[in-house]
């Protein structure tokens, strides 16, 4: 009976996460026992682990969960946010089991099924503070049970190319376009750079017929769908590695109403001529206060990004609509003349607060205004 707790392996802590700057954090392995590299980032959300695991924006990353207990409820309780797990691994403090006798799937089993490694029993607070102070890090996760020196692991972390300048979006974008919803009075194309399903659910809830196209869709391919609006999705890694996508966005600008989230926001920024640069350790959590500068209201938001638009680089015909109250970074922009807006955070939540669903309603209104002959950049009400 006591075998199920696996105390011996847990206390031996033979697995570790080695960071490129030489720091090493120990724990025990779970999930797939395969070593891998990744960029370590932390997420301060307290629930929604499966939504995080299936968020394609984490491709190439190790997510460090700061919350004390992870896996407390069954993996089969929550919906997936995409067709697979794209992140490289996860790091947790206390890994929970579930009640298998009543058919619950544990986090360990879920990771195993998706062939992803994890490390538990880690001093995640120390690791988080380290990442806060030294920035997101290239790292090496050693979980395969073999003997390996920490120095070798650190070296492997250093040697890895990292995420900067890398196009991960193309790796996670579904190469086969598909129709997400077939009902609705508006026809919307969603460009998939690693799109979360809850975005699609929210668009569909606005009575939109949603067609998903892959990242390499050309301007012509998009317009061939005769969209009333185009949605630019979230996605992983470096927006600066996607000039060809930014070029398509630039072509779409003014022709059709645009809404972007996360990577979509950055790409709209790039298309508008702004600069996008990397934050020290990014924003990853469910508790970030974002102020809507139009209304003065504060939304508690779900966030997951390492890059942000530089406010000073925005052209004068673009206004900042939302800012992050923690560090005053740009969280949302809107073109003053053309029908296009985007936000850096995740109004679709999953995980996180649902305070910002109203933005999908604004997208719908913008499309309706555009169809009615207005430019669509006019005043937008809050939902």
């Amino acid at each position, binding site marked *: *009976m*006591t075998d199920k*707790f696996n*105390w011996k392996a*847990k*206390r*031996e*802590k033979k697995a570790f996460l080695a960071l490129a700057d030489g720091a090493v*954090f*120990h724990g025990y392995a779970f999930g797939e026992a395969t070593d891998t590299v990744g960029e370590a980032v*932390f997420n*301060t*959300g*307290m*629930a*929604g682990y*499966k*939504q995080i695991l299936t968020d394609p924006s984490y491709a190439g990353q190790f997510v460090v969960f*700061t*919350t*004390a*207990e992870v896996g*407390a*409820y069954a993996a089969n*309780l*929550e*919906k997936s946010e995409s067709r697979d797990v794209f992140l490289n691994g996860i790091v947790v*403090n*206390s890994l*929970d*089991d*579930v*009640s298998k*006798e*009543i058919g619950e799937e544990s986090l360990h089993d879920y990771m195993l099924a998706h062939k992803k490694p994890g490390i538990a029993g880690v*001093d*995640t*607070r*120390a690791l*988080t*503070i380290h990442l*806060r102070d030294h920035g997101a890090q290239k790292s090496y996760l050693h979980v395969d049970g073999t003997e390996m020196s920490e120095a070798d692991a650190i070296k492997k972390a250093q040697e890895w190319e990292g995420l900067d300048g890398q196009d991960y979006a193309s790796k996670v974008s579904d190469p086969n376009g598909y129709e997400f919803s077939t009902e609705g009075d508006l026809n919307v194309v969603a460009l998939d750079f690693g799109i979360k399903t809850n975005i699609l659910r929210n668009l569909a809830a606005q009575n939109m017929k949603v067609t998903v196209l892959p990242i390499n869709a050309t301007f012509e391919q998009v317009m061939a769908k005769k969209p009333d609006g185009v949605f630019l999705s979230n996605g992983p890694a470096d927006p600066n590695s996607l000039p060809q996508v930014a070029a398509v966005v630039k072509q779409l600008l003014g022709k059709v109403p645009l809404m972007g989230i996360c990577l979509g926001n950055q790409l709209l920024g790039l298309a508008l001529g702004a600069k996008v640069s990397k934050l020290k350790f990014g924003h990853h*959590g*469910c*508790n*970030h*206060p974002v*102020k809507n500068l139009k209304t*003065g*209201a*504060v939304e*508690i938001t779900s966030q997951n990004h390492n890059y942000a638009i530089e406010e000073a680089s925005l052209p004068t015909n673009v206004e900042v609509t939302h800012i992050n*109250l*923690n560090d005053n970074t740009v969280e949302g922009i809107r073109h003053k003349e053309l029908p296009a807006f985007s936000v850096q955070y995740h109004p679709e*939540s*999953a*995980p*996180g*607060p*649902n305070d910002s669903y109203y933005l999908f309603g604004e997208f719908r209104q913008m499309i309706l205004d555009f169809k009615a002959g207005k430019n669509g950049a006019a005043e937008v009400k809050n939902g």
Partner: protein
Amino acid sequence: MPKRTDIKKIMLIGSGPIVIGQGCEFDYSGVQACKVLRREGYEVVLVNSNPATIMTEPEMADRTYIEPLSVDILHEIIRRERPDALLPTLGGQTALNLAMELNERGILDRYQVELIGAKAESIQRAEDRHLFKEAMLKIGLDLPRSGSAHSMSEATAIAHTIGSWPLIIRPGFTLGGTGGGIAHNEEEFETIVNRGLDASLNNEVLIEESLLGWKEFEMEVMRDKKGNAVIVCSIENLDPMGVHTGDSITVAPIQSLDDRAYQAMRDDSLKVMEAIGVETGGSNVQWAIEPKTGRRIIIEMNPRVSRSSALASKATGFPIAKIAALLAVGYTLDELRNDITQTTPSCFEPALDYVVVKVPRFTFEKFPKADSTLGTQMKSVGEAMAIGTNFKQAMQKALRSLETGFGGFGACAKCEKFAAYDDETLAKEVARPSAERIFVLHEALRRKWGVEKLYEITKIDRYFLRHLEELALYEDEILSAGSLENLAKDLPLFRQAKELGYSDIQIGYLFHKTPEEVMAVRKQIGLIPSYYSVDTCAGEFEAITPYYYSCYAENSEPVREIPGHGHKKRIMVLGGGPNRIGQGIEFDYCCCHAAFTLRHEGYEVIMVNSNPETVSTDYDTSDKLYFEPLTLEDVMGIYEREKCAGVIVQFGGQTPLNLAMRLKKAGANVVGTSPEDIDLAEDRDFFKQLVDKVGIKQAESGIAHNVEEALAIVEKIGYPVLVRPSFVLGGRGMVIVYKEKYLRKFVEEAAAIGEGKPILIDRFLEDATELDVDCISDGKHTVVGAIMEHVEPAGIHSGDSASVIPPMTLSKEIQDKVRAYAKEFAKELHVCGLMNMQLAVKDGELYMIEVNPRASRTVPFVSKSIGVPLASYASRCMLGETLEQIGFTEEVHVPYVSVKEAVFPFVKFPGVDITLSPEMKSTGEVMSIDRDRGLAYLKSQLASGNKVPSQGNIFVSLKDEDKQKAVPLIKRLVDMGYQIYATRGTSTMLYNEGIKTRAVFRISRGRPNLLDLIHDKEVQWIVNTTENGAEAMVDEIQMRSKAVVSGIPITTTIAALTSTVEGLMDKHDFGRFEVCSLQEYHRHVKK
């Protein structure tokens, strides 16, 4: 939007005495509000009847009224002060109810006082069952099937409509669910509905479908006037629905809900705020979820700061009360900084990277006849909170923080009694929610009953059961080491045990070693705790405020060097742990004073405490706060980490005192009176010698370890005797015995409580006057703070007795003798700091009862009466200042009278005898001040909830020896227009004295009797005194209990009656009560 400038003076109502359901959390919230409102430039008028609070310290507000919390008194204060606004949301249900009454009576309108924080309509909507239901249905929330009734017949009709047992009954407008219950059949239904109708202020009960076994959650919400709203903390109850949330073990953040379910509950909680119309401030929303279907039901919402808010504040570092006060005066959340990070705004939701567990503390041992099964009526008197990096660790820390003899979750001697249960008993006890059920569960898990079986029995979520199961089974893993020496050689195993929260006490128990031995071995191998901070943001931003908890982890945050503190010595102050009867807010008051004073005097103060309700655990009370259990291991870990120069033990009550010697032996420098001298004062032989040396009498006494020794002693000194175990606070296990039969019984009981410590037997001084003296000494000079004379005679615990400053009946000669003795004893005991003496006067002769070289329960009362901060001065003495340097060399004599009265929890324990005895039973106290002694006493009765009517019918039943003494008093009452009812014997006697009464039967003899009178609302006051020593008769217990439940004032001693009559006569002359602020009173003190 900046703060409002159209209001200047704000009135704040406190929550009054500590009672079950309203603890010291409202002192914490009140203090935060006072501080921040004054910092913002507002004038604050504070009203509270509880002297043991920090909020009523004269520096905390501009005007402080220690007056009864009644509408009439508040009316007087409003008339006098003319505040612009009243902030009613920080003083618990008491303040909220008073504000509503002031509003309904038009007093707020008449004096143009604006309610801020919550509007009357919102309060009404949240509190009135119909309006609440209506509002919730409107926003589409699910509610239990229910109905509300104003009579028994309405209630029965509703029960038929719902059509299934059990049913939950809740009275409207009460504290902590008073009078509610779960009815499983018609008989129970009738009893509980009647009780509920009585307890409800608006004579209403809600009857609803049972949600027994559903999962229970709480959300702490903050909202500003712009509609910005955040969840500060989410809380999950380990005990499912059916146990009052105040009596449940609770966990933060919520563990067993997935994000989707959590966010839906979050959305709805914010909607509730809006629907109720809470414009600004903090509220608490309670939910129940059916575990299988996920059907979620709203239970209730409180439009005010609550017990849960205090817990949420401590659990997250988000100062709810402070922010609520700022929002009430016009700020918005985005305008306010987060104290802890100083860089981010308060408009955010704290992210926790640890687990918090709160466990309630009960005192059923004080009320052996009370039903110890937990239900919808709150019964706990305090709580402990612990923080850990995983649930198991937090749970274990919380359980050892309780200080009930358990070193954690199992693995302790006290759990052995559960091992003796047969399976049947075990199953029954697992199913029954009780104070110790968590340990019963431990036993069941040890027997490998497994998660599923226990889930079926308890409906405690499998998440919790899985963790508890792992802990219960892990004991064998520790034992597999074979011995402590081997464990020390297996660092990974030892470390794992510590990560899972095993204390040195538990590990010691498993290997038959003392905690000290475990600690020594552990330190030898370098296995010491890590410390992490509570930072509201899970490490995302740097924390400025040093608020810590311990854990075992690979790393640790370094000791924080506070800028500018380089040269400062660090002094640790040990708090009192969870509140309990005998050790409550008074000691937290003293600890806070020590912290304030030492900081002011240039020390860096390290506070250690485990009680989330307190001001001492506010992170700005001390320089550094460690939220930790008060055990040797936990305290020494911090002491060594911070390299403290000393530790103060004499302010936190018995908890730190019991640790004093062990701390010293472990290498800590205990400042103030030495642990040896503290121990000496408890040593009977030494004390006897000391008493002889000083030349004061002492009641003859002896020490027994068993019944035979006890009988031998009584043979010598004679009955009646006072029997008690040594080393306890609050007179635990203490009784007066008149007969051998009872002596045998009580000695056995006392031996069980004292855990091997000897039993003390004193001759009992009947009808003696008791005195309490608090004094302060710098090691050379001693100054008396005050001599207090008890209203009730010796034999009633000093904590339960009303007491008066200055003494009422003592001659100057006696008083001077008392002062001389105080000086002698302080000198002999090498007291440095505070000392308390208890004495008795019988036939003009003084007897010493006891001397305690530490802070006593009465320190705040005395300090407020004489206008001298005794605890503060004592702290300075302990660190080397003399009383002369401090400027306190003369006793203060005051030209007014202060009365302290005790407040009891009897209403929560129906059927329990309310007679006062040497065993302390009160949970709290009130103070009143007046120039007139009678009025001061009468005010104290009003403040303590024993509101004597100014007209009406009195029922009188007296013991024989009191009958003559009562005659003149009753004559005066008749003269004032009262009608008297009496039982036959008393009636005949009074008739012979020329007093006409109406005779009724004794309850057991026939009808009509008192029960009928109460039922027909024919009596408004009961005077009932009983024979000493005899076990109270069923009749009387029933009568008194009924009176308490019916809210009829009851006077149980002739002394109290004397004072009350005096007060009534003075009130009759004056016409009304006068009110006056503490600051004004203190101006009259001759120093």
